[in-house]
């Protein structure tokens, strides 16, 4: 049995980061030159955006419901149960909407991209594409990045709306709060900076999901087992990076908007 070499491990990590950075950089660079694969981008938008709609709607809705229930229990102790709408809206728009949507779309699409491109890699379809004069990064990666960033932005808005709506439903039906008052406190609590923060996060998350999914797909080795490994790694790494990025963006936005 060979011994674990920390040096070899560190080198492989650095090489992976370098390879990922080159892939992501080239994919972004390809957006500014021809040929552009517009039809592939729309196909991916349909697959990623429309395809993820049910999971995002359901996740957002039930998260809003749970938030309202949990918030009401705590707020009741302070006689501030009317503030439920404020808490639900702020939590959904600033944090839970962007992060949960990112994680859901990551679970569905980073894995899909890694397995699709990984299968193409192990069956030499990526090499065939290159042999036919097509740059796989331009054809496969760039459209997925554009589609994911664009669609995740709107999916997050939908998730925020569904979450607030779910919270309102619980507030009115189970907590017997006033509906218009719920929406009024929710609306009044949100300021420009909160919305900007909530809509900046999906831009980063979308880039992470597509670039990580494609990176693990295009570097797949080891046949079908390798495809499975790449899929798992893509979901794990993109999920961790989404949360890390969420922390950094939050810190940055607090620095700018002061809340």
């Amino acid at each position, binding site marked *: 049995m060979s011994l674990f070499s920390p040096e070899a491990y560190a080198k492989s990590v650095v090489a992976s980061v370098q390879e990922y950075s080159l892939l992501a950089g080239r994919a972004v660079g390809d957006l500014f030159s021809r*040929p552009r694969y517009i039809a592939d981008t729309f196909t991916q938008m349909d697959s990623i955006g429309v395809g993820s709609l049910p999971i995002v709607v359901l996740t957002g809705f039930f998260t809003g419901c749970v938030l309202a229930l949990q918030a009401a229990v705590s707020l009741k102790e302070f006689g501030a149960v009317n503030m439920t709408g404020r808490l639900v809206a702020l939590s959904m728009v600033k944090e839970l909407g962007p992060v949960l949507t990112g994680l859901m779309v990551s679970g569905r699409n980073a894995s899909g991209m890694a397995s699709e491109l990984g299968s*193409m890699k192990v*069956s*030499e*379809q990526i*090499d*065939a*594409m*290159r*042999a*036919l*004069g*097509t*740059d796989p990064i331009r054809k496969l990666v760039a459209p997925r990045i554009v589609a994911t960033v664009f669609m995740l932005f709107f999916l997050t808005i939908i998730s925020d709306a569904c979450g607030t709506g779910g919270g309102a439903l619980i507030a009115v039906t189970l907590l017997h709060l006033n509906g218009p008052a719920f929406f009024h406190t929710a609306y009044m609590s949100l300021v420009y900076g909160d919305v900007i923060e909530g809509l900046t996060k999906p831009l980063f998350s979308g880039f992470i999901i597509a670039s990580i999914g494609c990176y693990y797909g295009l570097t797949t080795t080891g046949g079908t087992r390798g495809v499975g490994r790449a899929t798992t790694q893509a979901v794990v790494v993109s999920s961790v990076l989404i949360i890390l990025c969420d922390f950094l963006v939050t810190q940055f936005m607090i620095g700018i908007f002061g809340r």
Partner: protein
Amino acid sequence: MAAALTVPSSAVDDLPEGTPIVAFDHVSIGFETHKVLTDISFSVARGETRIILGPAGCGKSTLMKLANGLLDPDAGEISIFGRKLSSMSEREVFAMRAHVGMVFQESALFDSLDVEDNVAYRLHEDKVPEDQIHDRVVEALRFVELEKAISKFPSELSGGMRRRVSIARAIITKPDLILYDSPTGGLDPITSTTIIELVVKQRDVSSTTSLLITHRLQDAFTLATHRWDTTTNSMQKIPNGDLDPNTKFLVLNEGHIVFDGTTRELTHSTDPWLKAYLE
């Protein structure tokens, strides 16, 4: 194929006389600690069919991928159509590949596209008008005698049919160089002969330069001893035991070239390893 149809202009027309289509100059490559090819030098002239033989794992497929720029060598220079690959930008390499057709060992058809879209892939990329694409696809599929399978998906085809679709995809743009990576690998003898017939037909009808890897010695010698008869539209043995002058051999073993020459030189070689390999 119809002359009026759009095809990329030839990469070999402006080449000076005698310039090899493919030239390897002291090329070496390895993966991690394992050396795959060492100090490989050979050249392929215009119109030549170079058959690459050797035991499994000796680096034949790696050599083929090097020739198409799909892999970069660790040392040495590779020239295609008179230009060094190392001096080309990535964009130029992709443009160069438009003049090279490649048939992969496992066909490598795009499994989400049907046969028509697989064969037409490069035409779509070249923005050829749609009304011309269908005619050219039918023509390429007719060449490999598979026009009835035009609307099928790769998963519905047998291994031999997939290989023939792969050949149709490689020849549809009339490339100046075709790389066949084990086109008969894993096929039964009858299907293998059908594939070799197509290779002979392409060689003799279009005079396309090609590199061909094979594990089957009988396929290699069929290529050397047969020609395509356009009157009977079939493969015929060259009379009087003559050999095709444009078919040459390259034999690899453990990453080194052990033979580079004509069919006659190969069969008369006194090298003990080569004699044992050929038996």
